[in-house]
């Protein structure tokens, strides 16, 4: 089937770049700024267990002590004013199980984003988060019977501590970086998922993260545990309206794939251009297990995100497929980390970045392969596409140690969409935006074939909208 045939079957979603908002009206509001009291307020609202309260407060200390990663990051990070951000906003604590019970403005928001329709068509379960908390959460009943758990972070830690606590904060420790510490202090929402031994989910679970309020920080926390021989695909989507002021999105996502389990984590991110998107994502793969990140970064003011896989058990596999699109005034600083810790582990990184106008994209890769290991393989490919001469792209691949029995392969390319190519396409009747969009779609085409269909359709539409908008 060709791409355009696939497009015909697209679920029609009125995304409009997600640029709309509803008036603010919250029951719980932690106010502006970050102090111990802010954290205590969040813990009180959530009725956190004592160990969770301590975990948060300790994380706040770490956050305060940790410097910004200024040694290599974009200077723009310094423009985040932590005292002006609102750290917790919600309309209530318990997510509805039926869309009918979701407040009208929230329900309309998600309807405009096409979530209920996607749920009917191809999802096994959905969680829809509006600012700090999920407004809706539901999973198909048969999965519940099989013992699959799909809840928010608060419910996960309160109701199933025996399952989640042993792994919580273990793949990504609080002190990993300043933003993982911030998340550990303020986290709210996100998905906690447990897939029991041998259970293979045929349809994806999905979470949608929506920021509606201005000056707000969204700190969802996700932990997915796939028990032995189980399989799960999880999709997350994100949008926010365009505000004048900066908005912060700083998630922590931890994946645990036990022996022979498979986790596929897919992100469709379409943040508006005022969002700082600073996310820490890492998976751990036990013997024979597989963790695959499919990561698409469109929009935001600055994104810093380097999904990683710790290949802990023999024969584990890790993969990062990413697409980043940096438009005028945006910086996509993305990449991947692969930590080989056992023999026969393999990792694959394919990164495609598109820079438009003054947009900037950076690739940072880290492949760690100690010398004593045998039969480990890494393949890294990063391709950059520049549209317009002002665009900028940098590649910083880092490979640390590799033994004689291991192989590491690295390829990088930079190409441009020329004015002559655009003229050629326009001569056939395509507008400038359509022509650029086709060129971009062509550039990511082979990578998109590896994505689930619903996802590539959505991605194609986002690229089209972004390119239409980039023509002056």
């Amino acid at each position, binding site marked *: 089937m*060709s*791409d*355009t*045939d696939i497009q*015909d079957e697209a679920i029609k979603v009125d995304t409009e770049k997600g640029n709309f908002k509803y008036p603010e009206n919250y029951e719980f509001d932690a106010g502006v700024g970050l102090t111990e009291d802010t954290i205590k307020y969040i813990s009180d609202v959530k009725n956190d267990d004592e160990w969770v309260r301590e975990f948060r407060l300790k994380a706040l200390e770490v956050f305060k002590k940790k410097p910004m990663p200024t040694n290599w990051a974009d200077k723009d990070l310094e423009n985040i004013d932590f005292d002006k951000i609102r750290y917790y906003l919600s309309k209530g604590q318990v997510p509805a199980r039926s869309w009918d019970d979701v407040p009208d403005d929230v329900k309309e928001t998600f309807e405009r984003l096409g979530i209920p329709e996607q749920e009917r068509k191809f999802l096994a379960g959905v969680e829809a988060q509006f600012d700090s908390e999920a407004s809706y959460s539901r999973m198909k009943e048969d999965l519940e019977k099989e013992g699959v758990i799909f809840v928010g972070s608060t419910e996960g830690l309160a109701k199933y501590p025996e399952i989640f606590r042993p792994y919580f904060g273990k793949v990504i420790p609080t002190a990993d970086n300043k933003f993982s510490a911030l998340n550990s202090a303020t986290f709210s929402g996100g998905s906690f998922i447990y897939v029991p031994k041998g259970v293979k989910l045929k349809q994806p679970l999905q979470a949608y993260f929506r920021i509606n309020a201005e000056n707000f920080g969204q700190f969802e926390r996700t932990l997915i545990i796939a028990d032995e021989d189980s399989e799960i695909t999880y999709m997350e989507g994100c949008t926010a309206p365009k505000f004048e002021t900066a908005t912060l999105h700083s998630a922590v996502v931890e994946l645990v794939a036990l022996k022979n389990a498979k986790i596929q984590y897919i992100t469709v991110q379409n943040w508006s251009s005022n969002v700082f998107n600073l996310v820490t994502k890492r998976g751990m793969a036990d013997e024979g297990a597989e963790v695959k990140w499919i990561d698409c970064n469109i929009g935001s003011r600055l994104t810093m995100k380097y999904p990683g896989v710790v290949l802990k058990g023999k024969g584990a596999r890790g993969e990062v497929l990413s697409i980043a699109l940096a438009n005028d005034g945006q910086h996509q600083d993305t990449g991947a980390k692969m930590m080989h810790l056992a023999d026969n582990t393999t990792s694959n990184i394919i990164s495609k970045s598109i820079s438009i106008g003054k947009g900037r994209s950076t690739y940072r890769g880290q492949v760690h392969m100690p010398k004593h290991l045998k039969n480990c393989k890494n393949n890294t490919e990063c391709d950059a596409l520049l549209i317009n001469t002002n665009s900028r792209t940098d590649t910083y691949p880092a490979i640390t140690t590799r033994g004689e029995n291991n192989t590491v392969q690295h390829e990088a390319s930079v*190409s441009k969409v*020329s004015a*002559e*190519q655009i*003229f*050629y*396409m*326009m*001569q*056939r*009747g*395509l*507008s*400038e935006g*359509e022509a650029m969009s*086709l*060129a971009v*779609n*062509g*550039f*990511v*085409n*082979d990578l998109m074939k590896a994505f689930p269909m619903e996802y590539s359709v959505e991605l194609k539409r986002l690229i089209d909208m972004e390119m239409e908008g980039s023509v002056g």
Partner: protein
Amino acid sequence: MNTLEIKNLNVSIDGQAILKDFSLTIPKGEVHALMGPNGTGKSTLAKVIAGHEDYTVESGEVLLDGVNILGGEPDDIAKAGLFLAFQYPLEIPGVSIANFIRAARQARLPEGEDINAVEYYKELYAKMDALKMDRKFTARSLNEGFSGGEKKRCEILQMSMLDPKYCIMDETDSGLDIDALRIVSEGVNLMRSEERGFLVITHYQRLLDYIVPDVVHVMFDGRIVHSGDAELAKELESKGYDWVKEEFVGAPA
């Protein structure tokens, strides 16, 4: 009204005049051949008409069925009915021929209307068969890694799928082998009709053996210096351009 009319066109690039008071009228139903030495401005003419922005139009008009298209956006000119088969077609990696032509067709439809995929592919395959193009080509990236002749065939495929009112073919024959030349010419001849006009830019008589022109023009130094019937091309083939040049240089300014 049913003409592509180029009136007193003056075009320069970086301050250097390339087209000098160029005039030419192509009525629908006719094929005009444009010949002339390298660097006289034939491709420039084609690109200016198609809306290329690198050239500075000093003065003149290009009327497509009476409407001035000069200075318009390339896509608007294309949608008004002008097709340019490029001398050097561009490669578009990752975009398949089928999807590209489909997008171009879609761009011609009113908002909300969609192409019927089944009919589209039927037509596409029929036209590819006629041009003796392997159907496997539909999935290949547009022009990427194509041989010179394959690129030219692909131009003609696009031309026939987009149903233009006026076709400008810039050296479509170069790069074609003898069989391909015949096949492509047959494809063009099938498109000849009372509803369509052609400007065929070429250096060689052999193309005009297949696509017999109604009028032949000789271009030199940015303007047409001589016009005649199909016999003129034969004369050029045997005698070269020197006599035209001499005639032109010798003529009073």
